[in-house]
């Protein structure tokens, strides 16, 4: 006997002890597919035959079986299963996970069972036990189907058992090997004219077939996919049916059933159904067919509809099509519930003011990886929500007939020639105005906490997966929810930057030679050195106008953009909103003047910048820490020096001390001068300076495919249009394999830092560079001698201090920089791909989490 077992089945072996279940299971299934009650008894009690452990053993068995079914794996239950009450939970389990329960009964003569058991030393029950089990099994044979087993296979002898072959086959809805490309077409409802137009527009052609008939085919082999509701309501139902039927038969189309189609099938099968919602039109057309042909026609319709599969999983699982959509956990499964969902979706059980059932918004909750294309509910425009799209644009109600080209994700529509039918509920909003935000944007107004908290593993294109620990996510939640800007603006956060290795040159901690060596040692030949501005890192998102902000970012009433810090906080606090408006307005004007909107064919830009002065954002830090330390040092050190001077004049042994404290006093003065460089009062926007250094993204993409010289040059053009506010960053290209070029780079650094500059940032020539050890640091900073006083304290360059500071660990910071870089870029790429905000936010939140001190969220 051949036992056909499609994937996703729960196989329940039934037979008394000694009937050979374990042997049978071993022969036909992988060891991990078989769950044996004996094994589970052993797991919980150390004794496979301990009957007192039975309840616990089955709890374990059901738990493991559930986990396997949830992840779509076959399960074979190896237990006697001779009583209906022991099978009941297994059938329920299969239902819970939308798998199909199958019974395989090993109906072996009692004598054989008993003999086998007698030969075993670990089992001591007498023949009466087996007799009873065999009796229970025989009684079960009649009820198995009623209990819910979809297939029952009975093996009546040892010969049957030995001859049995298990054949594994994919489920009917599994067409993963079919890669299309596809043209998925929404609810046609007999709109034949529009369908022909649409097919033609999609490039399909009418081709002759045998017998003078024609069928629509695509010359390039594309396949149409009909989302059901072929019948009812429209003007030419039967023509539509024939067209679709012929395409399916010819292999140029797939079709899934809709609720109307299935209702028609029941009518054709003689069931008593209500003749409403357009069924009357179909029936009228059938009635109009000459009587001689009518029976054949009806039989053909029955066969066609009955043969339709509830939904399809296509293209390696990346595409799912169903009439009313499909939740992730139901995709590719087979159960009554799956079919139900495919046809009708889910409803809350309530009805709205038009008497229509209120639908559950499964798409809003959708988190699956597969794209789901569906129809069923007419909507004025097809809109993406969480990788799902409803393309029923109500052609029969006077809307349009829409197709989605896959994988291109292009929408193609043909307007309805007439309104063939009045919808119960007007599906085009009154006044014909589109809503302010798209469905996705409205959904994105509130993010779900489940998408950010807990341990998270985020795959990135640039740098494998990035793991965010629960403790870090918890810390980031507070910052994000209490201080950060509207998440819709936060499409990028910049990575941290590590310094170069320390130098051994006297009196110095950092020097460009080490930065050059860093890249050279990883096989990177060219670098771009950019002057490092001492301000605060700022991300500027700016749109062409408020309309663009609403359309692209889904933000209304918050101006044309945002300027935020490394931790996502508004640069200009709420009260300074007018300042932000003026500031962004200047940038917007500069973008216009430099022609960059047109050049990039975009209405928005995301720029990575430094905003100066440092004191603009760091005022509190300056007052509490930097200036305070300077004030304390200047208050104390001169007094010490004075005391030591007096003492040295009259006693022995104080001279060395005096010298050392004089030096310290001088260092303190240098420290104060160092930070003063980066401070100036800000009274209005004109006192600010913004130095953009990366054009991170625009509508034309994420610009990490362009090298840093391109970024510098393009931004210089922008900056020159408003030199009062914008500062073009000086840079130099350094060939790190060339001594003269490096010497030039070093000389430039000395000049910059000699003037009190912070130093420079050395980047690989290409934005994303891969070296001998994989992804290379996106940037390494090399800071000047005086500037470092602000970092390591006023006296860091005293010999005994410098010596110790030279040993510093960089690997932690560098690994962090790479992970944050990858996440930041991932966020932008997801945004540019128009993914739901939660997918962008996940990455941005991840950067913030990596930057946060972990807190223990377990309470």
């Amino acid at each position, binding site marked *: 006997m051949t036992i056909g077992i499609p994937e996703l089945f729960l196989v329940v072996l039934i037979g008394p002890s000694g009937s050979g279940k374990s042997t049978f299971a071993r022969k036909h299934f992988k060891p991990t597919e078989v769950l044996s009650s004996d094994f589970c008894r052993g797991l919980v009690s150390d004794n496979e035959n301990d009957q007192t452990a039975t309840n616990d053993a089955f709890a374990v068995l059901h738990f493991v079986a559930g986990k396997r079914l949830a992840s779509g794996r076959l399960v074979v239950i190896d237990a006697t299963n001779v009583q209906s009450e022991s099978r009941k939970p297994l059938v329920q389990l299969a239902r819970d996970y939308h798998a199909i329960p199958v019974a395989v009964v090993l109906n072996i003569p009692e004598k054989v069972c008993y003999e086998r058991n007698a030969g075993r030393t670990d089992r001591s029950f007498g023949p009466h036990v087996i007799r009873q089990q065999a009796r229970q099994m025989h009684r079960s044979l009649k009820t198995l189907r009623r209990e819910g087993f979809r297939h029952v296979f009975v093996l009546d002898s040892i010969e049957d058992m030995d001859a049995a072959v298990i054949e594994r086959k994919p489920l009917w809805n599994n067409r993963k090997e079919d890669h299309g490309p596809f043209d998925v077409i929404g609810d046609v409802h007999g709109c034949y004219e529009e369908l022909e137009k649409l097919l033609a527009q999609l490039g399909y052609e009418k081709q002759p077939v045998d017998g003078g008939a024609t069928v629509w085919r695509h010359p390039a082999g594309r396949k149409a996919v009909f989302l059901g509701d072929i019948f009812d309501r429209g003007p030419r139902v039967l023509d539509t049916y024939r067209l679709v039927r012929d395409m399916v038969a010819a292999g140029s189309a797939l079709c899934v059933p809709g609720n109307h189609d299935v209702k028609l099938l029941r009518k054709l099968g003689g069931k008593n159904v209500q003749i409403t919602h357009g069924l009357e039109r179909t029936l009228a057309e059938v009635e109009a067919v000459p009587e001689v042909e009518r029976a054949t026609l009806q039989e053909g319709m029955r066969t066609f509809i009955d043969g339709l599969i509830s939904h399809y999983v296509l293209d390696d699982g990346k595409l799912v099509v169903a009439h009313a959509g499909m939740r992730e956990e139901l995709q590719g499964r087979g159960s009554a519930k799956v079919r139900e969902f495919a046809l009708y979706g889910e409803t809350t059980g309530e009805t709205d003011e038009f008497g229509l059932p209120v639908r559950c918004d499964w798409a809003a909750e959708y988190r699956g990886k597969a794209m789901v294309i569906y129809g069923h509910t007419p909507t004025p425009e097809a809109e993406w929500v969480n990788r799902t799209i409803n393309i029923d644009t109500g052609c029969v109600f006077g809307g349009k007939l829409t197709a989605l080209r896959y994988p291109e994700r292009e929408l193609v529509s043909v307007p309805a020639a007439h309104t063939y039918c009045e919808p119960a509920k007007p599906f085009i909003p009154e006044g014909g105005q589109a809503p302010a935000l798209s469905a996705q944007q409205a959904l994105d107004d509130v*993010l779900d*906490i489940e998408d950010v908290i807990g341990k998270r593993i985020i795959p990135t294109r640039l740098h494998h997966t990035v793991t965010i620990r629960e403790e870090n996510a918890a810390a980031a939640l*507070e910052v994000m*929810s209490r201080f950060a800007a509207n998440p819709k603006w936060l499409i990028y956060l910049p990575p941290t930057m590590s310094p170069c290795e320390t130098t051994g040159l006297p009196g110095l901690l950092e020097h460009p030679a080490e930065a050059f060596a860093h890249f050279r040692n990883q096989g990177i030949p060219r670098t771009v050195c950019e002057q490092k501005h001492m301000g605060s890192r700022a991300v500027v998102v700016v749109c062409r106008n408020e309309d663009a902000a609403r359309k692209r970012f889904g933000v209304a009433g918050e101006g044309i953009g945002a300027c935020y810090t490394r931790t996502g906080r508004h640069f200009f606090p709420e009260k300074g909103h007018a300042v932000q408006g003026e500031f962004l307005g200047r940038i917007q004007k500069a973008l216009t003047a430099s022609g960059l909107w047109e050049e990039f064919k975009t209405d928005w830009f995301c720029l990575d910048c430094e905003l100066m002065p440092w004191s603009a954002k760091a005022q509190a830090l300056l007052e509490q820490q930097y200036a305070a330390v300077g004030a304390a040092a200047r208050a104390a050190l001169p007094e010490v020096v004075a005391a030591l001077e*007096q003492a040295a004049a009259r006693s022995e042994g104080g001279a060395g001390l005096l010298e050392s404290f004089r030096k310290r006093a001088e260092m303190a003065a240098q420290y104060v001068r160092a930070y003063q460089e980066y401070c100036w009062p800000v009274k209005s926007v004109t006192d600010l300076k913004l130095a953009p250094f990366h054009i991170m993204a625009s509508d034309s993409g994420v610009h990490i495919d362009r090298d840093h010289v391109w970024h510098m040059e393009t931004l210089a053009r922008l900056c020159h249009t408003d030199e009062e506010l914008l500062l073009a960053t000086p840079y130099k290209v350094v060939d790190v394999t060339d001594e003269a070029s490096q010497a030039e780079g070093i000389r430039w650094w000395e000049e910059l830092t000699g003037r009190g500059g912070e130093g420079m940032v050395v980047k690989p020539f290409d934005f994303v560079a891969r070296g001998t050890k994989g992804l290379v640091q996106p940037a390494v900073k090399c800071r000047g001698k005086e500037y470092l006083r602000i970092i390591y304290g*006023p006296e860091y360059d005293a010999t005994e*201090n410098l010596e110790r500071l030279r040993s510093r660990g960089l690997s932690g910071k560098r690994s962090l920089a790479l992970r944050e870089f990858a996440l930041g870029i991932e966020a932008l790429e997801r945004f540019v791909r128009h993914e739901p905000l939660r997918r962008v936010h996940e990455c941005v939140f991840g950067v913030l989490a990596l930057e946060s001190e972990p807190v223990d969220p377990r309470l």
Partner: protein
Amino acid sequence: MLLIITTTRRPATNLGWLLHKHPGKCQSFELPFGKAHVCYPEATEERCTAALILDIDPVGLVRIQGGPSGQNWSLEQYVNDRPYVASSFLSVAISRVFGTAISGICKGKQEVADAALPLQVKLAAVPCRGGEAFLRALFEPLGYTVAAHRHTLDEKFPEWGESSYYTVELAGTVRLSDLLSHLYVLIPVLDDDKHYWVGEAEVEKLLRHGEGWLADHPAKEQIARRYLMHRHNLTREALARLADEDAPDPEAEVRSRAREEEEVEKTLNLNEQRLGAVLAALRASGARRVLDLGCGEGKLLQSLVKDKSITEVVGLDASVRALEIAQRRLKLDRLAPAVRERLKLLHGALTYRDKRLAGFDAAAVVEVIEHLDPPRLAAFERMLFEFAKPATVVLTTPNIEYNAKFENMPAGKLRHKDHRFEWTRAEFRAWAEGVAGRFGYSVRFLPVGTEDPTLGAPTQMAVFSRS
């Protein structure tokens, strides 16, 4: 970092004897955090000056494992004022380097050690958290004349204002050992920080060095509190033991208790009234399962969990730190399982949709919304009224009109640094009615606290009911 002591009692060079350090030399001493140097800028019959210079290793502070850890000042910072100021580091140096002098022992010249001498002191730089007034309040009762010079933060930027650092000069006629004890205790009190962990032993130190003067000091509560790093139990213990040593003055005790009550009542009143009003509104709704959104340290949770008619209480806050305090305050790990099961704390945020919050009868949102940026209110509204949608929402927020009644509040200022806005009654009403209309609730308003006829009550409360 610098302590200078001068005496003019002839022969002034006796100071060298008292300090046990030779006036002709410059000496250095190793300390765990660096060095201390002692030298004499002048040493004549008429006038002798000793200088104690603290030489803290700035890199060592950060780099040495298991090193000191301050509270107000993170010592993990390279850019740090500790090397330049008079702080608990200086106290340690005084006790190590001038140990004999502070104990009041002087071999051979005990009569000098026992005598009150004319002494002058200069300290640089002293971080005075509390300003010159506090500095005077500490030293003047001990008989010193005080001169203080405050340093500006940065001369180039006068608009940044003054720093908290002073150069301090004291003059008085006291025993040297008393002077050193005063400095030992009061320097870290001025700084309001310590570079080491403060435990039981610190109470002993305070009482030992405070013997004979602290019990009578009018600022003894503040001194004890700051010296013991605001740890209530330690402060209580120290003050109790100080009072024991004292001749009991029952009247004074009653006076101080009355003052305390007044203090407490001022804050108690509004807070307590607000919680009471919220509780009353929740009870009136008949809610059995209650959310406290933005529960903070759990004041409301405490009352909710005591109410037997409420079967489930969930407190949510964005701050893990606040939740930890709530957990401690509610003694969660010590509650009986039956009580424990009724109460749950969740870490979450008010701007994210959260399935864990669905299906409750009521939510309390007490003094929370004013901590949200106005543009984020929309997310909060949907999260609460559209997704969690409890039958009742009790929400309070300050009434900005009432701020005029707070005496020490400058006009235009909000009640808390983190308040992003405060609303007038009309603004609150408009917002609440808008929310109620959009999400299918009805709303009523109640004043909380004593109502002013024109300005209204200090706190405004809205009670939303789902229609």
